[in-house]
């Protein structure tokens, strides 16, 4: 945590002043010890990314390796963004991200606030809510796939609980959503986009909310809201009781204490939570792949599945690489400012 490292900074500084005399050799030792890790990551992260970028600019689109550059240079990217499937992927990622983060942060924070009252058994509750986080996305996907199977799962549960009977009584049809098999895209905004953005009318995808993406966001929320809760509880534990007491003396009610005092104080936690969830959702792969696959009409396809299929099934290496680079850029847009601000805070 930030607090941990900032606490020790002065101590480290004094030490370096005291020991300047034999610092050189010790610095050399330090660098030599770090060198294997530095070299390994330089290759496996930065050289590899550069290679993927090169491939994305190349003519390599079959099993036969061809690293010659394509003319014009960014042609593959043009091809990528013209694909209906890729456009659907970007839409789906956006929709998934919004729903998933809204659900997970709301639920995680609510659970944390409720558990922060230290009611009887709060440890048991906390452990139950965090439990899904210990599981693999594959396990989550496999189970939730059946829960959101329209033939059984939740629809069956609705039936068993008599909800459809109730709906029929008030003259409504039965509630039987298609969940992950539903190809519907609601709240379509193509018309609005075409009026505002030049060139938008050539987009092949229906911009809106693909309904099949919502069950996936719910499954992801099940897995990660406990994690959000744990981060918030960690933050709340650092706020002393005096703060709450002072607010209480000022006449604040329980709700106001959280709304006006504690949650604003937890801003750094909220930033961390959102950044982490954002990068999880931009990269999401295993959960969607095992739970829903690409979905009807690519309703649940995401960039990570696209890259995987282009690279390892269709062997269209340049196209897959271009999509991977776009994913990297999206994640970097979130992570680089976050890491940079951390670095600045520390120094």
């Amino acid at each position, binding site marked *: 945590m*930030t607090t941990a490292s900032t*606490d*020790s900074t002065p101590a480290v500084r004094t*030490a*370096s002043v005291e020991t300047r005399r034999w610092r050189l050799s*010790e*610095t050399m*030792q*330090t660098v030599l010890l*770090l060198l294997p890790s*530095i070299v390994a990551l330089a290759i*496996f992260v*930065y*050289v*590899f990314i550069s*290679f*993927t970028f090169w491939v994305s600019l190349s003519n390599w689109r079959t099993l036969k390796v061809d690293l010659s550059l394509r003319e014009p240079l960014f042609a593959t990217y043009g091809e990528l963004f013209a694909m209906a499937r890729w456009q659907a992927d970007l839409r789906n990622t956006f929709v998934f991200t919004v729903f998933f983060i809204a659900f997970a942060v709301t639920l995680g924070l609510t659970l944390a606030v409720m558990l922060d009252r230290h*009611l009887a058994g709060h440890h*048991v509750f906390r*452990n139950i*809510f*965090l*439990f899904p*986080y210990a*599981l*693999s996305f*594959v*396990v*989550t996907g*496999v*189970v*939730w796939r*059946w*829960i959101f*199977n329209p033939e*059984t799962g939740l629809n*069956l549960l609705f039936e*068993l609980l008599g909800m459809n009977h109730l709906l029929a009584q008030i003259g409504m049809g039965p509630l039987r959503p298609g969940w992950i098999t539903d190809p519907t895209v609601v709240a379509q905004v193509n018309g609005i986009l075409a009026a505002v953005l030049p060139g938008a009318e050539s987009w092949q995808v229906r911009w809106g909310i693909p309904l099949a993406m919502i069950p996936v966001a719910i499954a992801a929320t*099940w897995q990660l809201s406990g*994690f959000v809760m*744990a981060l918030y509880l*960690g933050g709340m534990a650092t706020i002393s009781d*005096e703060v709450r*007491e002072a607010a*209480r003396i000022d006449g604040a009610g329980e709700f106001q204490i959280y709304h006006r005092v504690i949650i604003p104080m937890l801003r750094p936690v909220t930033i961390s939570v959102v950044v982490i969830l954002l990068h999880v959702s*931009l*990269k999401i*792969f*295993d959960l969607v792949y*095992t739970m829903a696959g690409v979905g009807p009409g690519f309703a649940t396809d995401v960039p990570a599945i696209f*890259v995987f299929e282009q*690279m390892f099934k269709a062997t269209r290496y340049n196209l897959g690489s271009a999509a*991977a680079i776009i994913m*990297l850029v999206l*994640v970097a847009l979130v*992570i680089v400012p976050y*890491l940079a601000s*951390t*670095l600045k805070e520390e*120094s």
Partner: protein
Amino acid sequence: MTTAALARKRRRPRWGSYAVWFVLFCMAIVFLMPVYVMIANGVKDAQSVSLQRMWLPPAQLSGANGFVGAWERLSPNLMNSLSMVIPATVLSSLIGAINGYLFAKWRFRGSDIIFTLMLFGFFIPYQSILLPLVRTLQVVGLYGTIPGLVLVHVIYGIPITTLIFRNYFANVPTELLDAARVDGAGVITTFIRVMLPLSIPAFVVVGIFQFTNIWNDFLFGVTVVPNPARQPVTIALNNLSGTFSVEWNVVMAGAVVAALPTAIIYILLGRFFIRGILAGSVKG
């Protein structure tokens, strides 16, 4: 502690607490629902598992329940996972401990930037390195093997293990190091004599964190190891789930089997698990 107890007593409306407790109780049931589905359907036999009876508990426990089939199909992959996750966890923890110690206590000009550049490797979408990774593993002859997966998990685990150890060692008083230095101990001797004995809790936290992460991985397993017989259990579970000839009870039991190791660790060592989350996910 006393102020906390006092504050708790001060909270007036007791029925409010009951309401919150009731909401928590309902949420717990919702959270446990998928776990129930996995276990209840896993212990059913092939005759009694059906889509219409998904929510019902098994009528009787028979010897031919889903776990028999799941164990038969998944146990080789379970072994693959174990032989991957144990060395990968140990190695990446050790490397992380040394790196974390150096970055926390032997800062040099540019060390923070190097550390941040390393940390970036934790966040990248691995899709952006898969192609050259697979080619490299093919060249060095590790493609399709468990040692290849171990190597991959160790390297891509370095950023996060380094981060957790760095934050941990930053809290160790520098006076301890100075004392060792006065005694003539160098960089490595100080690490072995002073820091390592102090770092057992950090090793537990990092070990659990890495074990869970590596066990739960899917992307590296599916791309680095194409041979189903050698794949880790998460990939085998996905294959099982996509096979139409396999009964549904076997798939559910398979999900339990694949989840069991990390679930057991979570249940036994939950406290350290939570510490790992706090240490590994809040910024460095």
